């Protein structure tokens, strides 16, 4: 009986070397401390192919609209409820104008989502929060304070029928 491991076939041995190389190659592309990439002993053409794929095969992200619509659907499923009778159909807000870090596919046709009940987009919540903050926050400038005082005066003044 032998305690030695069975010898690997040449194809497996080579594949193991390639695998080790890919491990260090992909780690070198990742942020953070870099590993030492040893000079590999396998074919330079395969090495060049690995380097090309590691640098050029990008990860795609779905459109913002799709991601949010699916998040909404998952929330509804998780909450065990769909849109209520008081729900209204509305277009999802346009995506932000910032340039995404990775190439994004073109947006597909505009989809509609349900707003109402438990369903709301991150945009609409952020908009409501911003508006509430703007109303509640004390004005920073003298002009702002004057404008608000004038507005309060107009609102509280008795209405005169003409």
């Amino acid at each position, binding site marked *: 009986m032998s305690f030695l491991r069975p010898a690997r076939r040449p194809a497996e041995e080579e594949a193991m070397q390639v695998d080790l190389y890919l491990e260090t190659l992909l780690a070198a592309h990742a942020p953070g401390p870099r590993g030492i990439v040893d000079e590999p002993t396998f074919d330079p053409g395969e090495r060049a192919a690995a380097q090309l794929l590691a640098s050029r095969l990008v990860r795609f992200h*779905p459109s913002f609209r799709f991601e949010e619509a*699916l998040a909404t659907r998952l929330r509804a499923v*998780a909450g065990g409820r769909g849109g209520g009778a008081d729900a209204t159909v509305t277009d999802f807000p346009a995506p932000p104008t910032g340039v995404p870090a990775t190439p994004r596919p073109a947006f597909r046709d505009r989809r509609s989502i349900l707003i109402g009940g438990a369903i709301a987009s991150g945009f609409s919540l952020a908009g409501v929060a911003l508006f509430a903050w703007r109303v509640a926050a004390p004005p920073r400038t003298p002009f702002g304070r004057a404008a608000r005082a004038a507005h309060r005066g107009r609102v509280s003044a008795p209405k005169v029928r003409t």
Partner: protein
Amino acid sequence: MEAARRDPRAFEPLYRKYVGQVYSFALYELRDHHRAEDVTEAVFLRALTALPRFDERGEGADSTFRVWLFRIARNALANERRHVRRHPEAPLDAAFDVAVLDDPAARAAEREALAVAWRAIDRLPEDRRRALVLRFVEEMTTSEIAAILGRSEGAVRVLIHRALRSVAAELGRDRDEAR
């Protein structure tokens, strides 16, 4: 993960973390944005429904969930492909609308490099292409890929090596034609 199993409403962080990966995997397989979105939707709805049955294993909880999710994706893609086979497939590079850089010269070079890479993996047999995408795009380990594809780690290593060899040969042909 545990929180999401107890309360499905805690599923959203997992969804946000993996939606891009699942979509990307589907897009490389199907070469069609709409179909990739449909598969992504089916995967996460199925995952959410099946979450109580998910059995988290000891090591690398994060990657265990990812493997489970990608197994669902693999099955969903198999179903979708049955439909796709009845329709002509678009070449991989035609499916991507890439505009990454503002500089036209750099953009042209980038497009060409991307086109070369895509052309190379586009001609691979299905299983080799899938293994390469999981390795290079999703940056999965051999053991994760093995668990997703239902093969041994050794078989996956050989699969990736053969795929890489085919890509290298394809790139060599490309260079020869350019001369």
